[in-house]
């Protein structure tokens, strides 16, 4: 397995980095993040609308389906800035669902859904189950033949932004083979949906009970592409997750440094104490390394093999970087760090949540070791 040591930036990435930073800074001040945490929906529909209008949902969608025809490489700077400013919306879940369609949808499904996503409709993935396994093939939900159609059973967990989604890509077993199904939002009754209490209170996640939902044959996605699609989703989710983690890590360090520069004890600014300064520098070094790995992964994501190695490395380091930075951020704020009001907990929770989804650092290191030696 080859390790790519390339890194670069595209013109579109440069533009998007700029625009996304300003947009997220303007639209996601921390007071608003805090207010939305109390809100059931969890995001600002007006902001979501603007995200659609800015064309960000179209970035990685092919031109044939009204998209811009770029790739996830260009989505990375957007996700990074959203992570940095804790701007929540169905953007990531919709982008990932679109990737599933692009990779594994039938022509008819692509034609029907992708232009809708470009136009600003939300979509999501329902792949996890209560076994807690990161292996997306390890599922129990089922589709069973029932007359002309199929009836579903089982329960999906960690379905992000489900209540907003007009398309849900779910995984079920049909005759023992894992299959993906493009479920319409209107096929899901309110009673089948339960909001999950997740550690990252900025995000919204739901449990979806499939029991009794009927689907038609043409809702099944391309049979031959299931494995490749799940593999692609696993990596795409980790790439965008790394971007969010890196962005959040930047904020965590800025937030901590600010406190270290203003809080005094024993007559000195606490940032002059090396017991605080040196670990903060270590967190910063961890962040810079993670960011290099992130943009390298973005750069070679589409390359078979190299993309996988780079993405797993990026996620492993981004997880470690934010986990460490945010853990120290709580400690270095003293009593205030222990409070709900201190933003350090938001970042620590963000790291814990990302570690729990699509594999943590240890998991990716094991996968990498198996790939490399």
């Amino acid at each position, binding site marked *: 397995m080859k390790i790519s040591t390339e890194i670069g930036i595209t013109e579109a990435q440069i533009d998007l980095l700029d625009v996304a930073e300003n947009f997220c800074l303007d639209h996601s001040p921390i007071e608003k993040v805090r207010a939305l945490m109390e809100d059931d929906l969890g995001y600002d529909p007006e902001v979501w609308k603007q995200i659609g209008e800015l064309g960000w949902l179209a970035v990685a969608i092919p031109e044939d389906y009204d998209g811009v025809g770029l790739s996830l490489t260009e989505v990375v700077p957007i996700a990074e800035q959203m992570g940095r400013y804790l701007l929540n919306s169905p953007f990531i879940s919709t982008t990932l669902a679109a990737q599933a369609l692009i990779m594994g949808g039938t022509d008819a499904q692509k034609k029907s859904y992708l232009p809708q996503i470009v136009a600003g409709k939300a979509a999501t993935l329902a792949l996890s189950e209560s076994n807690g396994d990161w292996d997306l093939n390890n599922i129990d939900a089922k589709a069973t033949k029932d007359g002309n159609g199929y009836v579903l059973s089982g329960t999906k967990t960690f379905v992000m932004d489900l209540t907003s989604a007009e398309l849900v890509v779910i995984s079920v077993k049909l005759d023992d083979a894992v299959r993906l199904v493009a479920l319409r939002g209107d096929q899901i009754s309110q009673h089948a949906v339960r909001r999950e209490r997740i550690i990252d209170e900025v995000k919204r996640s739901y449990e979806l009970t499939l029991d009794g939902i009927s689907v038609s044959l043409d809702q099944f996605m391309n049979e031959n592409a299931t494995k490749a699609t799940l593999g692609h989703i696993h990596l795409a989710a980790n790439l965008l997750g790394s971007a969010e983690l890196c962005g959040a890590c930047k904020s965590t360090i800025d937030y901590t440094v600010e406190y270290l520069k203003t809080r005094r004890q024993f007559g000195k600014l606490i940032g002059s104490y090396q017991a605080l*300064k*040196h670990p903060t520098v270590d967190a910063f070094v961890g962040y810079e390394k993670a960011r290099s790995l992130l943009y390298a992964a973005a750069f070679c994501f589409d390359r078979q093999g190299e993309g996988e190695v780079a993405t797993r490395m990026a996620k492993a380091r981004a997880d470690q970087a934010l986990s460490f930075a945010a853990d120290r951020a709580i400690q270095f704020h003293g009593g205030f760090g222990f409070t709900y009001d201190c933003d350090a907990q938001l970042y620590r929770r963000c790291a814990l949540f990302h570690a729990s989804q699509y594999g943590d650092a240890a998991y990716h290191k094991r996968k990498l070791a198996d790939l490399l030696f």
Partner: protein
Amino acid sequence: MEAELREFERDADAWFAENTPGEPDFMLPLTFMEVGTDQQFEFLREWQNKVYSAGYLGAAWPKEYGGGGLTQKHQDIATRAMKKYRGPIMLNAIGINWTGPLILDIGSEAHKQKYIKGILSAEDIWCQGFSEPENGSDLGNAQLRAVRDGDEYVLNGSKIWTTHGHYAKYMILLARTDLDAPSKYAGLSFILTPMTVPGIETVKIKKLTGEHGFTQTFFTDTRIPADGLMGREGEGWKIAMQTLEYERSARGGQAGGYVLTEVDPLEILQLASKAKRDGQSVLADPVVRDKLMDFVIDAQAMALNGKRARISPLVRDCPQALPLMSKLTHTEFALRINEFAISLMGTKGGYYVDEPNAIDEGYWHRSYLNAFSATIGGGTSQIQRNIIGEHALSLPKTR
């Protein structure tokens, strides 16, 4: 230009393919600070001279002083070729990496004429007289006295941990010229000092590996020409900081090549096949795999940091951050990976250099001990963290 560069690249590749020496029957140093025997010294001096004569060192330095008169791109190509064939390190590190760039930047015409060529050819070895027995990290407190007497300075005091001290023809010296200056920094001056004049005694110091490494240098009423002064009296601290920026690669202009070699974590794979654990390869141990993977990722991240530093949209939050942290990350990595290597050897981790049963002739053991040279020399890792914290993150100073 492009075609010319490609031709240069082809030539450089061919030259290093043909001329890079094989392993001699003694161990070569991995860093310039490790040079411990005359045998190693002579071997490396000859190699640097050969590289320079072929035009692959100092390629971007001005022709009139002995450089190649080409561009930095040419030199980078040559350095890459050197790396590709894993050539030995450049010996005259203090000359090519910081004295040379400094002289080219702020030296007089006479300095340039006199020193540049000898730096590149390794004819004139340079050493650095900054640290003193009582003043190391607190370099600004250096006390070695230099008193002006006509067109000479008279030196009294001592420098220590002087790398290449007993081989050097010249020293870059940080000396106290003014005892009444308003601050400790303002009393310092930076002087290019000959090492071959009466009144200088170098005493070898045995380093932790048991070999000789650096020296303590004693100055007793030593008279040196005053024209070695760089800048003006009292500017020593500023100039010393500039040389440290070269040393920590935070500033460019170096002659090229490399003075430290790096361990590729995948080399550890070969090592791992040389010892068993519970009857199996150590690589079957999941803890070993996890740790090794951390090193592989770190090596990758450092290589990418170096490249990202040149992509301005990706460093605009803090452009100096990546260069500032480069010394800390690379030297700590080298220390830890050598330590890890020893941990993979089972009982054989207990051997040392020259023991016939030792894995790789004790290479990793020696490398681990030597790796502290770089986490201590050139400003310790703790001092590096202070610098990064204060300069990149604007944290309050530690006093």
